[in-house]
């Protein structure tokens, strides 16, 4: 993935200070999305062909991705291009602000691109139409085949400028692709861009694989595999495809996640029927036992500062969420509501824990503060679990299964996302049925 990154030569050529400019508060559900006009990028007529790509429509293709990204947030309302009043190249030089205001746009994105000597040069500008000002502008050079990422990076920059928060468009999601009847599922590791493009399958489906999770640099994945019918935690290098078993445990290891520095894996190990939480340092292979209890302790997740681990345990009789220091000391139960709680996942901001709740035959995805107060249930369904955070801590992706009939018919598993405001619930496009999603951090960071 690093290889993809060498290309960013960024030069900021204007970073206008804002005076009472448009901004979006993303801490609450936005019922009044900001109207934004995303002009197709102008394609320089000096552009050359490249590797069979349709360069002529590349400007439109890039703006379409930006548009889709913005619509998917629920915070923006990208306006129809038929209403646009200025040609892309002229608008990019200097928009006639009053004309764009006429179609009720509050922000405008313009840009141009040139493909020459095997390189794609792109620049874009974001305009505040009310203040008649440029808000931000950026240009960079890359290989033309990276054009989708260019669109995502532009989207992130605009999102950041308008919301004051980091974006999450130049990211990927790793998940388990599912096929076949419910009692004979074939499962493969799959990876895709956050918008569903560029799906790649990382395993062949010969053995059952579960719960993949990225490391902080998105180059490694830890997951569980039943290779040779031995359920164990594995480590996969996405670039080289090399896989290895994590540790030398004489039994099932499962529920792995990386520590925030990427140096350790925290997971459960089942010994004589009893599951406790362990860590293993990847370099030294030093294994530490973190919990010691006759109950089931599993689904561990580090806090982003690495000081704490949240997990679920049935030591009280039913599954509840606990938090402890990362050495296992100071175990504290944090969930006391009605129902049972599982899969705690610490927000990348450190302020919230996302979870699955089961109550009266319904499954909920929710968030709470890290001491268990302020519980908010975001979505209710027949079956859903395993939330994973967008890198800016604003959106959760999870999977949902449908109820099936007497022969298993009607069963499906899909990925969904929802804002932590509880708004903007939507299904993510996947080529196959899907479960166990894990969201990467920003790739270009």
């Amino acid at each position, binding site marked *: 993935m690093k290889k993809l990154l060498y290309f960013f030569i960024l030069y900021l050529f204007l970073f206008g200070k804002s005076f009472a400019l448009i901004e979006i508060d993303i801490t609450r559900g936005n019922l009044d999305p900001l109207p934004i006009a995303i002009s197709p990028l102008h394609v320089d007529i000096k552009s050359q062909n490249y590797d069979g790509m349709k360069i002529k429509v590349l400007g439109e293709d890039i703006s379409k991705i930006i548009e889709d990204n913005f619509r998917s947030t629920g915070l923006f309302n990208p306006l129809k291009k038929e209403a646009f009043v200025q040609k892309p190249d002229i608008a990019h030089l200097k928009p006639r602000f009053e004309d764009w205001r006429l179609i009720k746009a509050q922000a405008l994105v313009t840009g141009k691109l040139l493909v020459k000597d095997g390189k794609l040069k792109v620049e874009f500008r974001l305009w505040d139409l009310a203040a008649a000002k440029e808000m931000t502008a950026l240009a960079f050079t890359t290989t033309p085949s990276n054009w989708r990422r260019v669109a995502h990076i532009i989207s992130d920059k605009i999102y950041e400028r308008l919301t004051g928060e980091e974006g999450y468009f130049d990211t990927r999601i790793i998940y388990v692709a599912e096929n076949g*009847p*419910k*009692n004979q*599922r074939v499962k493969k590791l799959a990876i895709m861009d956050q918008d569903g493009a560029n799906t790649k399958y990382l395993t062949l489906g010969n053995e*059952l694989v*579960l*719960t993949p999770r990225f490391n902080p640099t998105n180059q490694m994945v830890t997951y569980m595999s039943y290779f040779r*019918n031995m*359920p164990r935690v594995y480590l996969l290098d996405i670039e080289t495809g090399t896989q290895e078993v994590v540790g030398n445990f004489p039994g*099932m290891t*499962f*529920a792995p996640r990386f520590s925030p520095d990427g140096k350790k894996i925290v997971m*459960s190990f*089942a010994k*004589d*029927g*009893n*599951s406790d939480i362990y860590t293993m340092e990847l370099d030294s292979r030093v294994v530490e036992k973190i919990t010691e209890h006759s109950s*089931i302790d*599993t*689904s561990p997740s580090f806090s982003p500062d690495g000081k704490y681990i949240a997990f*679920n345990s*049935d030591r009280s009789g*039913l*599954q509840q969420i606990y938090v402890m220091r990362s050495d296992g000391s100071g175990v504290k139960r944090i969930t006391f509501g009605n129902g049972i709680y*599982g*899969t705690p996942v610490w927000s990348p901001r450190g302020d919230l824990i996302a979870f*699955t709740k*089961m109550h009266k*035959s319904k499954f909920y995805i929710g968030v709470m503060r890290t001491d268990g107060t302020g519980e908010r249930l975001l979505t209710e369904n*027949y*079956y859903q*679990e*395993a939330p994973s955070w967008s890198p800016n801590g604003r959106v959760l992706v999870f999977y949902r*299964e449908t*109820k*099936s*009939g*007497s*022969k*298993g018919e009607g*069963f499906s598993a899909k990925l969904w996302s929802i804002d932590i405001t509880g708004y903007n619930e939507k299904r993510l496009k996947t080529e196959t049925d899907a*479960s*166990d999603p894990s969201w990467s951090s920003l790739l270009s960071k």
Partner: protein
Amino acid sequence: MIFNKNLKNVLLVIFATLILSACSTAKKSGDIDGDVYTGTETVKYLASGVPDRVFFATNKSSLTTASRATLRKQATYLRKNKNLNVTIEGHADERGTREYNLALGERRANAARDYLMTYGISGKRISVISYGKEKPVNPASSPLAWSQNRRSVTVKVN
């Protein structure tokens, strides 16, 4: 009064019908005691009269009286067939989080293994594996299916 008497009779008939239909539905969805499966559908046999599986209550790994009887039969069979090794597969229903269910399946398989060991079967002859909720025997989303899926299954290895 007559009207009242008639009404009483009608009510009695309705009541009786309700009870009867309740019984028949219980039997239909049935073979469940508490929420532990007690039927024979899905059950296979290690040998004649030796069922291969036992069933569990929701979120539980404790063995019922019937489960212990089944496991004692398995123990007798394994004592007679000294060269036979087995794997006990532990399973859970679909109404729980995936990772917790892996742990639960492991605990159920070990409960069965421990019981066989108290009846003199060497632990070396019994391996365990948990499939969590990954391998339902009945793919339906119903209490009956879930009760059939909460199981441990003893499988011959050689």
